[in-house]
């Protein structure tokens, strides 16, 4: 279970050439994610989704507030928490001179998975995500879909308990994203805790137990997709999004 309490993140940015101003990327965000739950994090570009997930993944430190993982927090148990986290963001290639296998092997080393288990684990993941045929290929030569599978795989070698996934399916075709979404659902059913941000409302409606909508750094709505649709008097999440974020109404 991940508990996020009153998280605020402030940045200083240049207002113009001389003045600086402070702005809150996240403002007093509170929610919890239970075991066996997928929480969708939704919101327009620049709403603060990524900043929030980075704080939960321990990359950024919040200005105020607390984050805890089954009672552990970053101050006391940083390494232990990170041993149990899978954090995936965007879709970029790193270490692309390595082969897929080499990269996964390296991740095993860093997470301290021993030799025998790491081979087993890599093969297991490769099978689940359908990566067998490009395990020996250099990452530089992989397609978008394959790269994203590798990116996901490299966060999985240590069998994490908490998933923090930032736009995991952006730019993927339906087949690749289906494999990834199915995998996430299975992990949920195993009792893992999953945070999932996306632009695709249909996807969120499909897989999320609950969603949190963020706009301008604040939570503007939280609840199950059903609740949100009911409260906003809409038939799908996309329309609910427009109603809540404002701007345009449904074109249907």
């Amino acid at each position, binding site marked *: 279970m991940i508990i996020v309490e009153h998280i605020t993140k402030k*940045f200083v*940015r240049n207002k*113009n050439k001389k003045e600086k101003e402070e702005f809150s990327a996240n403002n007093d965000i509170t929610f919890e994610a239970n075991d066996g739950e997928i929480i969708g994090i939704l919101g327009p570009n620049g709403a603060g989704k990524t900043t929030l997930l980075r704080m939960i993944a321990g990359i*950024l430190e919040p200005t105020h507030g607390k984050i805890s993982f089954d009672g552990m927090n970053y101050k006391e148990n940083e390494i232990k928490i990170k041993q149990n986290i899978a954090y995936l963001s965007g879709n970029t290639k*790193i270490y692309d001179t390595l082969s897929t296998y080499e990269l996964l092997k*390296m991740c095993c*080393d*860093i997470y301290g998975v021993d030799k025998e288990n790491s081979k087993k684990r890599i093969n297991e993941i490769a099978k689940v995500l359908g990566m067998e045929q490009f395990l020996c290929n250099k990452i*530089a030569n992989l397609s978008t879909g394959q790269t994203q599978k590798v990116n996901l795989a490299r966060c999985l070698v240590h069998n994490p308990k908490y998933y923090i996934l930032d736009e995991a399916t952006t730019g993927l075709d339906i087949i690749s994203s289906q494999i990834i979404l199915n995998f996430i659902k299975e992990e949920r059913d195993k009792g893992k805790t999953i945070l999932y941000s996306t632009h695709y409302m249909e996807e969120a409606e499909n897989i999320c137990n609950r969603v949190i909508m963020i706009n301008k750094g604040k939570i503007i709505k939280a609840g199950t997709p059903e609740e949100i649709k009911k409260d906003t008097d809409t038939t799908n999440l996309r329309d609910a999004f427009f109603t809540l974020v404002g701007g345009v109404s449904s074109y249907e």
Partner: protein
Amino acid sequence: MDKVIKLTKIFLKNSFSTMDARMGISTKSKSKIIVYGLLFLYFAGLIIFLGYNLLDGLIAIHQETIFVGMILFMIFGLAIIQTIFSSINILYFTKDSEYLLPLPLKPYQIILARTNVMLIAEYVIIFLIGFIPLVMYGILTGAGIVYYLTMILAVILVPILPVLLISMIVMFIMSFAKLTKNRNRFQLFATLLVLAIIIAISISTSGMKQDLTNEEMAQMVVQANGMIELVKGYVPTVDYLMEALTTNSLFTAIVEVLKTLGITIIGFIVYMLIAQKIYFKGLVGNLFGGGASSSNKEINQKEYRNSKLYKSYVGKEFKNMTRNPVFLMQCLIPAVLIPIVMVVVVYAGLNSDGMGLEQITQMVQQIPINTFFIACIILGVIQFFTMFIYISITAISRDGENAVFMKYIPVSLYKQYMYKIIPNIIMNIVTIIITLGIAKYILNLPVITLIVLFIVATIMGILQSIAMIIVDLKRPKLNWDSEYAVVKQNLNLVFPVLLSMVNIGILVGFVYLLKDINVYIGVGILGTLYMIPTVIINKYIYNRQDKLAEKII
């Protein structure tokens, strides 16, 4: 420790082979190894040659120990310069940072691995300029095994402190200066600083004459000794190691090496303590800090003015180069800087021989200047200067993956090629004008000669510009993620040098064949001759404009 070694390996593998993998080169790597191998041999040979001459002279007057001090200082200085360039990229601008941060790694492990990468890059160069000369010293002075062991330790230990020091300074700067912009500014500043140092060194050393009498040598030795003594106080490790390398006593050697080791370890501990405090703060601030600044809303009406396409396109090329420090340094600045630097250096060299400018001009004016011979020398010098202008040779590569833009807009490819070489021709003309200006000042050439030379040099410049864009079209480097890949790790850059060498060769041939020809006729012949390939290549580009763009995908 295990994790540190693994991280280091990954970082190294990544930073050294990035380009090859991206281009999918595996078959060509052989030729690459040969090229790098030859370069390595060339530099090693050069260093052995220079080192031997110096050392030989010093041994003759029993002052060979100065050599050791000089080499150690050189290692120290080089480590500083190289770290200025590499640290900011290695520490703050590698793509993998966001991936590393959520891993269960202790901060010190990441810092240590990054530092290792910087050090190892250092050792490659230091092998050349430190290890080889010191071995030479050992051989020429007939040193024993203790010397060699101490020397190896020295080569390993000396670069560590400067790397730590510079990294720490960079970390300090980055921990409060958060904007990504600073990378560009920092690198520009560092480049200018290094250039200034190089100019200063060449000015101060250009006074050295080749054949020194013993007396002069002794005088210089005293000066050098004084310099070393002066600087030594600030760099204790070099001081101790100098002592250790030049002593005859085993005991002293051990004590001095231990002292160095002690200082290095203390420095290392301090570095790790401070780095753990400030490195990640700056890193995170740089990766995610800020966000786009809110901008002023008014758009200047001037912006809406339309212009002719060629102006707009050439303007775009120039903007891309001036706003990109790497391209600015490699494409535009050399056109202005190189002729000036060269002239300053040469002038300083002559000056230190006790000749003032007036005497020089008087002297040259005694020889007949308005001759074909002098004209060819000037053209050759211009050729030499312009080969450092990398605009045309990187015209396509600079656009990176965006180069396909050329192929889907309704503007003919031939026109676009021409727009892309115009900046090269313009910068060539800048170099030509500067060089001719200097030539006019020193040699007082008649204006007509200057005009004729200008025309011919411009024709040669156009030839170079259009020939080089063909090279870039045939072997473009489009998949890069740092501008350095275009201007540094690009074998194409050999071609402008080759062409300039060929041109200089042709000029030499002409001088030899047509020694006494009238300057205007001679230069006229040259100009006409250069028109021919220029027209042919131009025609070639025009006819094959689509075919030439095949590599741009």
